């Protein structure tokens, strides 16, 4: 996979400016679907999100010559995306997303039934997680990864967006707070809920696989 961060940026930017189509194709293949997921947090429909993502890549095409490299290429691209998605969302009269983290704030990370409810060991695991969860073969890992990516679709929008940016795309917490205009604390709450649920989904897949 083409590295689009840090030191790899310079070369990639040069290739884009030279009109190297494979460089642009690698950006499309790597970021198009993630951009769709982020855009969906701002706009009403899949079609609107497609427009926003298309506009973003057109912005990349027209702007790459002027891009000064003060941020990473990835950060620059997602800044364009969020700006366009916000504009589109406001035009649609949508309330700004991420203005509250009320979705899921009180959800426990793990089903409370899995802990002892009373007595000396209250709050300790009664149904502990499986120890050997790590997929042993690459094939299994790839399959689990694909299922997990599909499963996180069902997360509340704000949680899904933070998880996409942090764990799928590898943005730092600081970058995510900047992009989404949320506080560090809110970012962490959303990340916590999303990661806890992703872990639970993974555990379910692996345990189901064992039972079969």
């Amino acid at each position, binding site marked *: *996979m083409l590295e689009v961060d840090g030191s790899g940026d310079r070369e990639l930017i040069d290739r884009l400016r030279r*009109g190297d*189509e494979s460089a*642009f*194709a690698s950006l*499309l*293949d*790597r970021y*198009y*679907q993630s951009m769709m997921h982020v855009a969906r947090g701002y706009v009403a429909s899949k079609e609107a999100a*497609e427009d926003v*993502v*298309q*506009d973003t*890549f*057109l912005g990349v*095409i*027209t702007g790459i010559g002027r891009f000064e490299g003060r941020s990473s290429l990835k950060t620059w691209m997602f800044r364009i995306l969020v700006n366009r998605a916000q504009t589109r969302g406001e035009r649609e009269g949508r309330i700004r997303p991420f203005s509250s983290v009320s979705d899921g704030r009180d959800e*426990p*990370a*793990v089903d*409370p039934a899995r*802990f002892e409810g009373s007595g*000396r*060991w*209250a*709050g*300790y*695991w009664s149904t*502990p*997680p*499986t*120890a050997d*969860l*790590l*997929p042993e073969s690459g094939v299994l*890992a*790839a399959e*689990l*990864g*694909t299922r*997990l*990516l599909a499963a*996180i679709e069902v997360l509340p929008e704000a949680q899904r967006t933070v*998880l996409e940016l942090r*764990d*799928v795309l*590898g943005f730092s*917490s600081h970058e995510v707070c900047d992009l989404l205009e949320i506080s*560090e604390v809110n970012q*962490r709450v959303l*990340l*916590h809920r999303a*990661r*806890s649920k*992703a*872990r639970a*989904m*993974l*555990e379910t897949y692996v345990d189901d696989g064992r039972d079969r």
Partner: protein
Amino acid sequence: MIRSAVRCSELVELATDWMEGSLDSVALGQLEEHLAVCPHCRSYVTQLRTSIGLLGETPREAPPASARAALLQAFREGVSPDGR
């Protein structure tokens, strides 16, 4: 198992703060003390890390062929496909 200042049900709620490095030193000490004696919570943290790793390593599906082709065309021409 040895009882510790942090219970398992509390550890799972602190796991993200811990991984993000945002716990104060007292909470950090209590959490790591618990992890040292609780294999189940170590499994839990391993699972969290595994799912985070999978999310980062698994490529997302390719864009729809028509959108991909239109944008590649725009790149070749240096202009947007619909003239915007």
